[in-house]
């Protein structure tokens, strides 16, 4: 029982990070039909942003302030990833709209360059980020079951992001414009929505969220230039599983993959677990080839 609880909790915290990463992917793919393979590198950017913030506090500010660095790091991660995402969209991505496979290759190239850049600046080995002391320890649920505060914090952060996204997409004006463009780009353009601006803002927000995910990852372990690649494929699987265009699909997809990963790796070995998860996904696609929440269309191709 205790073991079960701990495992379930770990699965939940993995799922929540996956969700944060997949959110940006699903939105950019749904909106622009662009597959952003460099998405993982925005995680890396966010992680290094947190690392930088921590370094600034350690090196040049009084030690008693150190605990305050993390909230600032979250904001900084978002802003940095958002800005770089915005730049990437305006300089490259917008030439690749509606060409999913080409965008995939070009952004893969971008990812490669960003990784190498990080390697040149911060060095190839992983670096550790000291988390603030107020996140040490954990919540004792019952004998033998402790929920670490770090992971609880991550789950809380994800819920917060999710709520913010929900209000942005479904309740705010820019969000409504985004939905309009997603559903019918030409019509939205005719109605006077600047699709260019919606595209770049949305892409940047997706990147920013990935940055937050990267920041959260610094709580779990050391970070390195290739940290993004460890998560990106799983995040893509979430999109495949959940379908495109609905927040709920991404949520269910992330929970599904995170939990399956946890369960299979627990029951078998890490390597066999991955195989089983993959087989589960392929099997699921036999039943729902377009993912959980597919939108039907009448066009031929």
């Amino acid at each position, binding site marked *: 029982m205790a073991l079960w609880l701990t495992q379930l909790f770990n699965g939940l915290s993995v799922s929540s990070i996956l969700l944060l990463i997949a959110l940006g992917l699903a939105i950019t793919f749904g909106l622009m039909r662009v597959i952003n393979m460099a998405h993982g590198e925005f995680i890396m950017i966010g992680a290094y942003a947190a690392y930088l913030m921590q370094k600034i506090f350690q090196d040049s500010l009084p030690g008693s302030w150190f605990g305050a660095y993390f909230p600032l790091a979250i904001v900084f991660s978002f802003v940095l990833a958002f800005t770089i995402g915005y730049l990437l969209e305006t300089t490259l991505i917008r030439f690749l709209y509606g060409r999913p496979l080409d965008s995939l290759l070009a952004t893969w190239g971008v990812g490669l360059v960003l990784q190498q850049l990080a390697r040149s600046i911060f060095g190839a080995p992983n670096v550790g980020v000291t988390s603030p002391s107020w996140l040490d320890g954990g919540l004792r649920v019952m004998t033998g079951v402790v929920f670490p505060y770090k992971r609880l914090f991550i789950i809380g952060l994800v819920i917060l992001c999710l709520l913010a996204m929900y209000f942005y997409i479904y309740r705010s004006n820019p969000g409504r414009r985004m939905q309009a463009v997603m559903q019918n780009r030409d019509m939205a353009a005719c109605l006077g929505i600047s699709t260019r601006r919606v595209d770049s803002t949305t892409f940047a927000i997706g990147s920013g969220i990935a940055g937050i995910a990267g920041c959260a990852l610094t709580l779990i372990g050391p970070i390195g230039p290739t940290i993004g690649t460890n998560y990106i494929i799983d995040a893509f699987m979430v999109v495949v599983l959940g379908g495109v265009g609905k927040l709920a699909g991404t949520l269910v997809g992330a929970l599904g993959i995170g939990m399956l990963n946890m369960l299979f790796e627990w029951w078998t070995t890490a390597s066999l677990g991955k195989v089983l998860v993959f087989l589960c996904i392929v099997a699921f696609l036999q039943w729902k080839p377009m993912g959980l929440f597919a939108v*039907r269309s*009448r066009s*031929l*191709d």
Partner: protein
Amino acid sequence: MSTTQSTSVLSCEKVTVAFDGFKAVQEMDLTILPGELRFLIGPNGAGKTTMLDVICGKVKPVGGKVVFNGRHGAVDVTKRKEHAIAELGIGRKFQTPSIFSGLTVEENLEISMSQKRGVFAALRAKMSKFDRMRIETELDLIGLQAKKRQRAGLLSHGEKQWLEIGMMLLQEPEILLLDEPVAGMTDKETEKTGELLKQIVRKRTVVVVEHDMEFVRRFASSVTVMHEGKLLKEGSMDEVQRDDRVAEVYLGRRRDADVIGSTA
């Protein structure tokens, strides 16, 4: 019921189609006799195109059946996949020209020819003298002889439509489903398409979805009017035009009403 089934080439019974709860077609019956030219008309959203989609397998209905009585006997096509339905002898032309833009005109026709369609058959396939003759004849008919080695993607809109009609003819279906074959065409192109259609109609059963009433009037042997996913009226063009309910449906939509009313 059994008598219509034995003589009809296609009979749809109580076909219902739903898209995310919205019923695009409701309990629609449609019976087509061999050699018939049937027009399917109705206001936008009446479910005409959806009906064609059901017959050719693109859309699976939630209820009802579609029995095709071709050279392979009576078959309920709602259980079959698209390619199997095409193989049975049901041909479909889509509203927007859908040709293979990376292939030449000639190649488009070559792969459309009625033939064995397995992987190994395609690997071994050779152009016989007869095949070449068929393609040449078709090229003359659709007037693309001079452009046969050009990439089909470079053709004009009208030329693409004709190429697709040519592809349909080489496919030799027993029944041909056409979705607005003259939409977006200039008057001259419409004229030529009309001529092509006359050739097609001579040899096989054809179902046409059309908005252009002038065009319908020139051909119509029999007309089926659909409205909000249901059958509204079936009969000759004259009968349909005299029908009050049809007039009412069309009066709600001014432009169509003008067209239909001008000869009534």
